[in-house]
């Protein structure tokens, strides 16, 4: 079976590694105690994940998910000077669509968050923008045709 590669920015990778270590620690503490676990008092722990400690199934599922991601990730690196003119993974692309401007960042599926303008390289628009440069007009084929005019491309990843 083909191995799934998770494309991650350095920032996201750091965040996931931190979460993985915290959850492993949580699991270790749980296994040391047969009683209901006490809340881990750590300022570092993301409060969104605190509830995971209360449910072993969730905790294990997330740990195994993070393990798979960390074992199969590929870092999104800034392109060479030559390729900076083009849309590649990690690019922030200013586009004009139907008379409106927007900034779309092309990321991997795991980091995609369209509500925040982070779109997946596997989405039809993400895929179509890749390889294009400022001035290009990218037509997205669907029953209703949409044209993306590329106004600017920048890279803010390290």
């Amino acid at each position: 079976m083909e191995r799934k590669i998770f494309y991650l920015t350095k920032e996201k990778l750091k965040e996931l590694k931190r979460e993985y270590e915290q959850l492993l620690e949580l699991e270790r503490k749980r296994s040391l105690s047969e009683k209901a676990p006490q809340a881990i008092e750590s300022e570092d722990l993301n409060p969104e994940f605190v509830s995971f400690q209360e449910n072993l199934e969730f905790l294990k599922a997330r740990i195994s998910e993070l393990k798979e991601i960390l074992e199969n990730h590929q870092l999104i690196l800034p392109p060479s000077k030559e390729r900076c003119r083009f849309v590649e993974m990690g690019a922030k692309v200013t586009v004009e669509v139907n008379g409106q401007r927007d900034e779309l960042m092309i990321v991997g599926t795991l980091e995609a968050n369209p509500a925040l303008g982070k779109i997946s390289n596997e989405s039809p628009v993400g895929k179509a923008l890749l390889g294009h440069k400022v001035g290009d007009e990218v037509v997205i084929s669907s029953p209703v045709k949409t044209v993306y005019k590329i106004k600017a491309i920048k890279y803010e990843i390290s």
Partner: protein
Amino acid sequence: MKNFVNFFIKVGKLKSMPRRGWVINEIKNPESIADHIFRATLMAWFLGTKKKGLKMERLLKMALIHDLCEVYAGDTTPYDSVLPKDSKKRREVVKKWPRFNFFQKLKLKKQKHEKEKRALKRLVKELPPELRREIENLWMDYEEGLTPEGRFFKQADRVENFLQALEYWKKYKKPPQGPWWEWAREYFDDPLLLEFINQMAKHFYGNKAIGL
């Protein structure tokens, strides 16, 4: 049992709460939030079986609880912050997909998330702790895409919404279809759901959709 009775009475309100996206598009007798949950759960089941490795029980539970918070939070749409009161102007606004700068996007997402989180906590507070935590965890997974089930259902949920939009468009010539396609081509990336959407396109547009 008293807490269960109270809970189900509250949840029952979703059967008569219309989906806001259709209300702002002036759809007659629009579907309710519960109607949406019903078909989204069926979709999660049928399409989820085609995905390798998904935990079905988790996926279906997630589908069932994903919009429960709307009992108190109500339904929201991406248009809410830009919607004029005047119905004529409103009809113009919904012809375009609303686009915002990064800070506006961040603010809107955070506001919605916090409002819904508070609403869910309020709704489940009288349930037994284990059930309460399970519901809150499933919702957080759906919101943040923490597991393959969470990531898959986040998109499957939107496919149901998209299908309903096309059904209404076919029947009433509204909502305008342009913004939906513009949004969909940026939003979806799951290969199976993209295949399903292409099939939807063929159903509603016939030959015009060939070659997508």
